[in-house]
């Protein structure tokens, strides 16, 4: 077996890191979403995602997709990166899943391709699924790109998510990058020491050993982090700071998001 499993794992790491970097870049630019309080962004975009799921009419979901694209453009999220990271990926995955539904959904035949036929109901359900998943994924990605993770965390805390959960999310996010970097280095160094092709069993052993070493390192890291926390006086109580202040513009934005969400859910019910 060639070393393509190492290559594709390394590419996966690079994709995750570049996504996080892009998010930091976009979040720092002046844009529509960026000017709102993070709580407004989170609640607003989530209300739109919920309305996409609630809508039962294809046309209304399509309108929400257009709204999502407009929000993306106004928030400096490039359509090219959306197309590459979201639209094509969703189309490849959900499109493949939805394709057989064209033929298997019972209903009125519109095109006959003997022995199969495409039904109106099949076409509608396939389109509804694809447009709905595309719209929800676009909205989520625009939210992720336009909001630094520290702000998302604080917004989650102000929405009364337990402090312990918010702290765990923050700490996990912090160490994901450290462990990604560690795993990246481990795979790169293994690759640099590998000459020729590995057999299937050998490559499985390489992957499992890397994961095993990463687990041991993670456990040691958690012990170090714990001792560092104790040295700073941690006794199990968590204090988080939230310094957000809602302005008139934020209230207006929140009202606009909620109105669009409610209206779309109502018309598309």
């Amino acid at each position, binding site marked *: *077996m060639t070393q393509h499993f190492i290559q594709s*794992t390394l590419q996966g790491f690079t994709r995750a890191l570049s996504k996080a970097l892009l998010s930091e870049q976009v979040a720092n630019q002046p844009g529509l979403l960026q000017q709102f309080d993070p709580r407004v962004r989170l609640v607003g975009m989530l209300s739109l995602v919920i309305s996409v799921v609630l809508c039962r009419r294809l046309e209304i979901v399509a309108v929400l997709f257009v709204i999502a694209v407009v929000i993306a453009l106004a928030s400096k999220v490039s359509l090219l990166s959306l197309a590459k990271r979201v639209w094509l990926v969703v189309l490849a995955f959900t499109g493949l899943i939805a394709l057989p539904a064209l033929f298997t959904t019972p209903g009125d035949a519109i095109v006959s391709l003997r022995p199969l036929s495409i039904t109106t109901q099949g076409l509608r*359900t396939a389109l509804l699924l694809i447009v709905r998943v595309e719209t929800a994924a676009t909205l989520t990605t625009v939210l*992720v790109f336009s909001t630094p993770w520290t702000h*998302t965390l604080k917004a989650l805390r102000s929405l009364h998510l337990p402090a312990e959960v918010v702290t765990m999310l923050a700490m996990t996010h912090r160490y994901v990058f450290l462990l990604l970097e560690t795993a990246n280095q481990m795979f790169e160094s293994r690759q640099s020491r590998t000459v020729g092709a590995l057999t299937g069993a050998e490559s499985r*052993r390489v992957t*499992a050993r890397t994961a*095993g*070493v*990463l687990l041991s390192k993670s456990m040691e890291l958690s012990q170090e982090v714990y001792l560092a926390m104790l040295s700073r006086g941690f006794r199990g109580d968590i204090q988080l700071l939230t310094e957000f202040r809602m302005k008139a513009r934020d209230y207006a934005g929140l009202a606009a998001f909620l109105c669009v969400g409610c209206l779309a859910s109502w018309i598309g019910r």
Partner: protein
Amino acid sequence: MHIPDGYLSPSTCVTLYVLAASGWYGALRRIKRVLTTRTIPLISVFAAFSFVVMMFNVPLPGGTTGHAVGVAVGAIVLGPWGSILAISIALAIQALFFGDGGITTLGANCLNMAIIGSFVAYAVYRAIAANSEFTSRRRVLAAAVAGYCAINASAFVTAIEFGIQPLLFHDSSGTPLYAPYSLGVAIPAMMLGHLTFAGLAEAAISVGMVSFLQKTDVGLLRGVKNLALGPESLLPIPAYEASQKNLWWAVALLMVLTPLGILAAGTAWGEWSSADFANAHARAQIEAASGNQAPPSSVPAGLQKLSSLWTAPFPGYAPRFIKSPAFGYSLSAVFGVGFLALAALLARSVSRRKRQPEARA
């Protein structure tokens, strides 16, 4: 197996969020009792590890590769409760900060992969490993079967969630509004990929990691209690007593509110009695609730036979001697809760008595 937004109906998402939230709550309570102040750093770093391992391409026989969740390793190292939290946090990070996997379906994804996966993995691992040595080959086999079963159990539940969508959520023309395939299609389609590639990837990573840890870091295989050793882990958790008190207040409030059930119109789907099949009004309700599918003309033979097997002491949530339905509902709630509390106390005292001789030994 990550379900994106849009595949499940809102009511399915809410139901699965509620189920997942009860799992998270129970897991956090239990793991804090073992790990106390270590909970946050240990679970967080393990969640970060799970996130990274989910990105590993595991080479499979035939030259292809697959991704693993690492749920069996999580359940073996952290126990089922710790694994539930760590995998859930990893899935939440994927959804909230990387936009992978849905936000409305996060409850479903956590229930399928983190909760069901962790429980199945732990149960299978414990059943096969039994009391064998931590360095025995039996534990490696147990890890492989645990990973394989866990990922397939998760896939099976995911397939059921997909498969019930067209049955329950379709418009007047019969167009499915969410995932379009019935159980007959969703289950084989989902299981085919998981019984082969995904199941093998999970088994391979579980086998490889457990056998590697047996040689290098066997302490990690000794269970979560072993990770919590140290004097500082004995710090008390102040919120515990208060939360139990709050739970009893909540139960009392729910008991008082039970008469709200009378407000519900019609009968619950599937909760029909044999008498309902002879009643024209009840038949119309069954038909309306079943997507205009007419119920059978006579009582199904099995239902008829089994319905006389057991007569409830409080039929219809009201003892016969009580005239007020609201009071009957509340009384039923008091009896029900009391009975369950008694059963729980009994189970606890039995399990304590069982544990004491072991502790002495």
